[in-house]
C-alpha cells in the first residue's frame, strides 16, 4: 500500500482534490509568485546538487583503490577553479534574495481600500470580529478583495497561517500585528442534501462538527485550513479554524447576518448553544463531563465548585457571569488561569443566552437553584 502511494506523494501538481500534492491548493494572489520562486530555487538547487552527487559517488567508485596505492594527483589548489565556484553560485544567491525581498515587500504593503478585519487569537482558538457585535471563529472573506487582518493575542504568541494563501504572520501579545492577502478562488457550496446528511449524522452521533471528515463547514461551504503555526501550549495543534471565500458580497453578508444578534424568535438556550460552539468555549469546556483545559459544563449549573483558594462557590448566574467576564478572579481548583476574558465581546444578552444553555445541561434542566 505504501509503495502504491509513492508516486502520488511526490506529485508536483498542487491540486486540492489531490491528497498527495506537493503544495496545498493555490488560492491567493501570493500563491503564484511564491510557488514559482520555490520551484525556481529548487531547480537551481538541483542544478548544483545533481552534479555534486554524481561526482561524489562516481569518484568514490572510480578512485576506489587497494590500500597503499598512491593518489594520482596531489594538487593543493587551483585559483581559477576556486574563484569560479565561489562567484557563480553568488549570482544565484543575489537573485533569490532580490526576488524574495520584492515579493515579501508586496506581502507587507497593504493596498488602499483593503477590508479591515480584527482577529483575536487566544489559547486555543480564534475570534474574528465582523463588526456590529458579530464574532465568529471562522474567517469569511470576499473573493478578489484584499483583506487586512489586524491581529492581537490575549495570552502568548500565536501565528496565523493559511497554507492555501501562502501567508503567515506571528501574533505577539502586547502588539498589533497585521497581514493582508487577496483570495482568488471562491469556496464552493455543497448541495443541500449533502449538507443535510452531514448535519443529521453529526446530530445522531452527538458529536461536534467534524471538519476533517466532511471537508465543508456546518453552513455548507468548502474551506481552506487556517492553522496556528507558533507553538502555544497544550492544544496548539487544535488551534485551527477555516477560511471561506465568498463569491459575492451578498452571499458574505447573508452569512454574517445569520450570526448577528439573536433573533427574537430564537430561544436563548438554542442561541447559547451556538455561542458555545462559535466563541471558543467548546475548545476548553466539554458538555459531556470530560475534563479538558477547563471544567466541563455538564451539570455545572447550580453545582458547588471548589476554588484554588479553598472557597466553595455555587455555580449560579452571577458566578458564571463573573467567570466569563473576569476569568482569573475565581479559578476552580485543579485548573490553570488560562481562560481569556470575554469582556466587551459578549453582550448581556449573549451571556444570558449562554447561562440559559448551561441550565439545559444541568441535571434537572436547571430547575433547582
Amino acid at each position: 500500500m505504501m509503495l502504491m502511494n509513492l508516486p502520488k506523494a511526490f506529485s508536483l501538481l498542487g491540486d486540492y482534490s489531490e491528497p498527495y500534492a506537493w503544495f496545498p491548493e493555490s488560492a491567493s494572489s501570493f500563491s503564484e509568485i511564491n510557488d514559482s520562486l520555490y520551484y525556481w530555487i529548487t531547480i537551481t538547487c538541483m542544478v548544483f546538487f545533481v552534479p555534486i552527487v554524481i561526482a561524489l559517488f562516481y569518484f568514490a567508485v572510480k578512485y576506489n583503490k587497494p590500500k597503499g596505492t598512491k593518489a594520482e594527483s596531489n594538487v593543493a589548489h587551483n585559483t581559477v577553479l576556486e574563484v569560479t565556484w565561489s562567484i557563480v553560485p553568488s549570482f544565484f544567491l543575489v537573485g533569490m534574495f532580490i526576488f524574495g525581498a520584492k515579493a515579501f515587500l508586496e506581502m507587507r504593503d497593504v493596498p488602499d481600500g483593503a477590508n479591515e478585519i480584527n482577529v483575536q487569537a487566544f489559547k486555543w482558538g480564534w475570534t474574528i470580529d465582523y463588526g456590529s457585535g458579530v464574532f465568529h471563529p471562522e474567517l469569511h472573506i470576499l473573493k478578489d478583495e484584499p483583506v487586512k487582518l489586524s491581529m492581537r493575542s490575549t495570552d502568548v504568541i500565536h501565528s496565523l497561517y493559511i497554507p492555501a494563501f501562502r501567508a503567515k504572520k506571528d501574533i505577539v501579545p502586547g502588539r498589533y500585528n497585521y497581514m493582508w492577502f487577496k483570495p482568488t478562488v471562491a469556496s464552493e457550496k455543497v448541495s443541500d442534501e449533502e449538507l443535510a446528511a452531514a448535519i443529521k449524522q453529526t446530530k445522531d452521533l452527538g458529536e461536534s462538527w467534524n471538519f476533517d471528515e466532511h471537508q465543508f463547514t456546518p453552513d455548507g461551504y468548502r474551506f481552506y485550513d487556517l492553522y496556528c503555526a507558533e507553538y502555544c501550549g497544550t492544544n496548539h495543534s487544535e488551534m485551527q479554524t477555516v477560511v471561506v471565500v465568498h463569491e459575492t458580497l451578498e452571499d458574505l453578508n447573508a452569512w454574517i447576518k445569520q450570526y448577528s444578534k439573536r433573533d427574537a424568535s430564537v430561544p436563548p438556550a438554542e442561541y447559547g448553544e451556538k455561542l458555545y460552539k462559535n466563541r471558543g468555549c467548546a475548545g476548553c469546556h466539554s458538555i459531556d463531563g470530560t475534563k479538558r483545559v477547563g471544567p466541563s459544563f455538564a451539570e455545572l449549573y447550580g453545582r458547588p465548585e471548589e476554588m484554588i483558594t479553598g472557597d466553595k462557590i455555587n455555580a449560579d448566574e452571577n458566578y458564571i457571569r463573573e467567570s466569563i467576564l473576569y476569568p482569573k478572579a475565581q479559578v476552580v481548583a485543579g485548573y490553570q488561569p488560562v481562560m481569556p476574558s470575554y469582556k466587551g465581546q459578549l453582550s448581556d444578552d449573549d451571556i444570558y443566552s449562554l447561562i440559559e444553555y448551561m441550565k439545559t445541561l444541568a441535571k434537572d434542566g436547571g430547575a433547582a437553584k
Partner: protein
Amino acid sequence: MSSGSLPKGSVIRDPGYPTASENYLTNSKGALSWIFTLDHKRIGVMYLIGVTVSFAFAGLLALLIRLHLFLPEGMIFKGAEANNYYNQVFTLHGAVMVFLFIIPSIPAALGNFLVPVMLGAKDVAFPRLNLTSFYLWCIGAIFFIAALFSTGLDTGWTFYTPYSTTTDTSVIAATMGAFILGFSSIFTGLNFIVTINTMRPPGMTWFRMPLFLWATYSTSIIQVLATPVLGITLLLLIAERTMHIGIFDPEFNGDPVTYQHFFWFYSHPAVYIMILPAFGVISDLISVHSHKRIFGYRFIAYSSIAIALLGFLVWGHHMFTAGMSPLTTIIFSALTFTVSVPSAIKVFNWIATMYKGSISLTTPMCFAIAFIFLFTIGGLTGLHLGTLATDQHLHDTYFVVAHFHYVMVGGTLIAFLGGVFHWWPKLFGKMYSEWGGRLAAVIIFIGFNLTFLPQFVLGSRGMPRRYATYDPEFAFLHQMSTYGALTLGIGLVIALVVLLASLVRGKRAPANPWGGATLEWHCTSPPPFYNFERAPVVGDPYDFSNVEWDQENERYVSTEPERKLAPEESPKSVPAHADGGH
C-alpha cells in the same frame, strides 16, 4: 611491507604497541583514577559516554514522537493529557539533543581527546578547568533530568516568552541546567583557544595545523563570545518568571520579540558550534581516506573563521514572520545568504579532494560521503528559508524540521559517527568489524532520508510543526517518516553494537590503521599517558607521500629518509670560539 614500495635509503618509523603501563586506559586503575583524572584523553572518553547516553535517551524520545504521529489523532499518548505529554516529549527531545548532545558532541568528546594529540602537546592548557567543565556538564544534565521528573517541560527548546514565563512546568530547573551547560561550554572553548595559541610544539605553524584544529578553534571563539549572551538571557527569563520585572512579558510591559532577539543571538551562532566541528572532522576524514592532500586548505581554514564571524550577524532569519520592520527583515535575509557561500565552497573542496585520490571505502569514509550528500541537502534547503517570500509560507512548518535535521543530524551527527569510527582505534586501541560499520552507515543513510525527505513535502503542503495531532491528508507522509525513523534507529543500534563488540573481540589496532599523516597517528594506539615520548617531528598534516601500506602487518607506517650518522672521528681543529680563551 608491500614489495618494493619502500623507497631506497629510507627507514620505517612506527611506534609499535603501548605496554599496559604506557596505555592511558590502563596505566592507573580504579574508579577514582577516572573521577579525579586530569588526563584530557580520559575526560574525552567520559564525555563520549555522557553524550552517547544523552543521545540514546533523546533518540528514544524521538521514536516516541514519531510513533505518536503515525496516526492523525495520535497513536501513543491518549486521554485528556495526551497533548501535554506530546509537548513535553518533543521539548525534552529537542532540548537534550541540542544542549546535552550536539553542542558538546564533537568539541567536548572528540575535541578533548584529539586537540592536544593532534597538536603534539601533553595535555590541554588547563587540565583542572577541563575536568570542571565535564562536571558542570553532569550537573547541567542532572537539572534537565530533575525538570523531567518534577513537572516536565513544555516550552520547546527555545523557551519563547511569554509562554515560558507563564507555563507551570519546570522552566526554572531547565533554564538553570542550560545556564550551567553554558559555563561548561565556555570553559571548554577557553581551554582550546589557550591550548592552540600557546602549546603548539616547534614547527607547528598555524598552517600546519590539521583542519580539525582550525574548526575547533573557530568553534571555541563562538562558544566564548556567544554563550554568555545565552546565560544572560536565561537569567533574565528566570528573573522575569519569578519577579515580573517586565522585559519579555507584555503583561508587565515587556516585549516577547526582545527575547527572540536575545535568544537567537546566541542560538544562531550555536548552530555553527554544532556544524563547524563537523566540517573539521569531514575535512580530515576525506583527506585521509582518499590519501590525498586536502584541496584548498587555506580556504577551508579561513572560511571556518569567516563562518564563525558571519554567524553572529544572521540571527534575525529565525524571525522573518515575527513582524520586524521590513528593512530589518531584508537586511537579515541578505546577510543570511552571505553565509551560504563559504559553506558551499567547502563542499566543492571536499569533492575536489576525492578527485584522483586513492579512496578506501572504510566505515569513516562511508560516513563522510553520507555527510556530503545530506549536508548539501540541508544547506540548499536553507535557501528556501532565507528567501523572504517563500519563508513566509515555510516558517514553523515541517519544512523547517526537515531542514534542521538534515543539518544537525545529517550533518553533525553523521560527522560525529564518522569521527568516532575514524578515531576509535586510536581511542581504545581496537579495530572494529569493517563490514558491520559499513552496514550501519548504509542503514543509517537510508533510514535518515526516509525519515526526513517526506517532511520537506509535509512542510511545503502546510503541515505546521509541534503538532500533536494533524489533519488526515498528511497521514501518509507522516507514516513514511515513522518507518524511516525505525530504520534509522536500527542503523544506530548496529553502529553501537559494532563499536562495543570491538572492545571485546576486536583486533589490536596499529598506530596508524588508515594512513593518516597528522600527529595523532604518530603515537601508539591507544596513546601513552603523555601522548608522545618526546616532542614529535611536525610535518605537513596532509602530506601522504611517505605513508606506506604494510601488507604483512595490516597497518600504515611512515617512512623517513635514512639519516646518515655524523662521522665518528672528532674534528681536528677546535673552532676558535669554542676553546674559551687563548
